[in-house]
């Protein structure tokens, strides 16, 4: 067992983990943050995407120990403390970009990074390519693409404030 200290959604945690413990297991099992999901075992589905120091990462591909000292944002930390949804969450709801909700946390975290890293704007094709690492079986992606396109101006307007 080893100790890892990391900040998750603004709160610092020090946790005992095995060397083989994955970051997603730490989040789900040690911290009870079950919003981050596990949909595969080959790092293909993206249900486990979180932000590590602002960058979207599949938390099933990282050992918990690698996250020592990191600042992690999960789906639970995306909305404001008063429950006001992040513009990406709001646009997913507005455009019916989720059905069963299982891929949704990873999809939203990927989408937030995609929009943040493209302040100049995103074409439909760029959005679709940007979702390359995330699988959804319910929506056919159509409404996810619409939601991300709609969130882009909202997020960048908010960032400019």
């Amino acid at each position, binding site marked *: 067992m080893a100790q890892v200290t990391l900040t998750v959604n603004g709160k610092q945690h020090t946790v005992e983990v*095995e060397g*083989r413990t994955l970051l997603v297991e730490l989040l*789900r099992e040690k911290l009870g*943050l*079950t*919003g*981050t*999901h*596990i*949909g*595969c*075992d*080959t790092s*293909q*589905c993206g*249900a486990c995407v979180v932000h590590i120091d602002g960058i979207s990462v599949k938390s099933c591909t990282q050992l918990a120990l690698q996250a020592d000292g990191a600042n992690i944002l*999960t*789906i*639970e930390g*995306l*909305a404001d403390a008063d429950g006001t*949804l992040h513009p990406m*969450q709001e646009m*997913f*709801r*507005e455009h*019916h970009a*989720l*059905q*069963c*909700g*299982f*891929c*949704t*946390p990873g999809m*939203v975290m990927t989408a937030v990074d995609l929009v943040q890293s493209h302040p100049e704007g995103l074409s*439909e*094709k760029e*959005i*679709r*390519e940007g*979702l*390359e690492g*995330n*699988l*959804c*079986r*319910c*929506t*056919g*992606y*159509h*409404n*996810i*693409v619409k939601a991300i396109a709609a969130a882009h101006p909202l997020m960048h307007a908010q960032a400019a404030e």
Partner: protein
Amino acid sequence: MVFQGIGASVRRKEDVRFLSGKGNYTDDINRPGQLYAYIQRSDRPHATIDSIDIAAASAAPGVVKVFVGADIVEAGLGGIPCGWQIHNQDGSPMAEPMHPVIAVGKVRHVGDPVAVVIAETRQDAKNAAELLEITYTDLPAVANLTDAVKPGAGEVHDGVAGNICYDWAIGDKSVIDGVFASAHKVVKLDLINNRLIPNAMEPRVALGDFDTSSGDWTLYTTSQNPHVIRLLMGAFVLHIPENKLRVVAPDVGGGFGSKIYHYAEEAIVTWAAGKLRRPVKWTADRSESFMSDAHGRDHVSTAEMAIDKEGHFLGLRITTLANMGAYLSTFAPAVPTYLYATLLAGVYKTPVIYCNVKAVFTNTVPVDAYRGAGRPEATYLLERLVDVIAMETGIDKVELRRKNFIGVDAFPYQTPVALQYDSGDYQTTLKVALKNADWDGFEARRAEAKKRGKLRGIGISTYVEACGIAPSAVVGSLGARAGLYEVAEIRVHPTGSVTVFTGTHSHGQGHETTFAQLVVDQLGVPFDQIEIVHGDTAKIPFGMGTYGSRSLPVGGSAMVKAMDKVIAKGKKIAAHLMEAAVEDIEFKDNTFTVAGTDKSKTLTDISLAAYVPHNYPIEELEPGLDETAFYDPKNFTFPGGCHIAELEVDPETGVVEMINFTAVDDVGRVINPMIVEGQVQGGVAQGIGQALMEACIYDSSGQLLSGSYMDYTMPRANDIPNLSVATENTMCTHNPLGSKGCGEVGAIGSPPAVINAVVDALKDYGVRHLDMPATGAKLWSIIQAAPSSGNAPAMAAE
């Protein structure tokens, strides 16, 4: 106030929890003292289990218990039951071999459970499983349909000759043969409906719990139908009566059919929890999902149509081999019979139809219903055949369809294959789809694409399906071992808010929203004062669950019926309070009124009186306002429509790019257009996946080659085009909502539209037909092999 009743695209109630990471999926649930099960699965397609040495595994750190097949035999556990019995042509019942929850003596597919290691942690259980010493003797395996029915093929089950589960037929062979003997022309097509793996994004999970004080079991499971699981597992496998067994299916991350069935793992964890007096949890790795979730489709068929000089369809003759896998899953026998052959009239007035289906055991994962179930297979077969008829007769493919359509004035229409369609308007859905897809402008787009070196194609499919499953007496006569009604309880609380308990289950369909809209519409209760509860046998009276696009037409109709009872009782209370005759009370917009007066009481006045019955007709009427209804549908429902795919093939690589997809569906009354569009979009994406990329592949020895997302191609965002989705609805005539259901239409109509478009794109290469999936490699090979040589398209010969 914003309108939130029937017809409004109300944003979903469930979304905030899913978007905030507050969903409650089965793997999110943990019980105190919980143990973890790891299932050691067979890596052999077919073998005898000669010995299992569990000593080292049992002694490994953290291990509490190892169970093998002998343990379940000793405990007297039953086999996993099949919910549908088909009879052979000679009247004898289908072969129904035992399906033990842990393999006993033999394994029959890669993934068959051989041993269960239960330990303090998941990792302990996995580590210990490595120490199991299992010796097998391999047996000859049959990995696919054509091999399984060859003379001398290995037998999956002793005593099931030729691996035939059943040999079933519908229609009169001598009559159809007569039609063919005198036909002007016969068009024949051999085709394969590719085997698929459903791949709901949430892997299956089962958590068994046992309350040592009450002696009650609870199973938390990823199910589309918790009551069905309670019935099958309790009555047939574990012999636990309903009152001692609770099944909870909380938030479920997609099903598409694969979470209908009772699976071995559910029984294993429930039984083990009772034996060990501790909760036991099993969570599938995705790799396990690939080799243990029921697969879909997998038909090999020959279809022949007899036509007259004008291209009228005179008779359809079909033989189909349908893969059952190694054991019969819950609904498996019904899929290639009553959900397939009965749909072979399609939207056409073909007067005579004959279909022979042989269901076949193979050494593969069980095959059962996957989104559409049987109806995509029927639609694909018909719509490919119709396009080939058009090609071979020179009749325009749209015109050929039009001239054979069942007319809008022909309903109710009795098909020659048992079903009676209640309503539909195939000319209209076709007309609107052609317009939305700009069918007439296609040749200009093809010419433009050609300048860019691309082969552009367009494909059409017109379809009908049967859903809203199903009238109990009818399905009972066809072999179903259950009724297929649905149940709703409407609880009006003392202060007028409402909780609905539904026997259906929402795993993406948005029932918490649409079902609340039904209550807004009928009772006039505000949307935010309505709660929909599903997925727990301890809360809901009963239910058959969600599949076959049944939740709204059957479950919603049960709600309507229960609300009718609420209103009827409310009228009696209102009549008493307002000193009027019951017949004079009218109910509208949440208010009971004495007709022709200004005397009125709100539903809240009435519910309060019902729960505080001081001034109340207590002699004639029980207190309370809580009504339950069971609704048994009078018929199936028949959504239909037209799908059009437009795509481009790159002749250099064979890769297909989807350009446009247009769907115009008739789903009956629409409660929430936004949700209907989402359901169709998702179904279409699965259909495009089947047509272009998805394929479950076994090698000839029975090893599963497509056992991960690295090998099984799932459609990603960049594979799917913008989807144009619209509805043109006729009402279902036999349920109170007029709704037909929309969950499966997308997956049913789309695959033939895509393949018809691929064949159209390759029309200069002499392609008559190709089997799904139309991968780049496959198309590249076809282009390379074309007589025109190289990859330059031959000039069109017309």
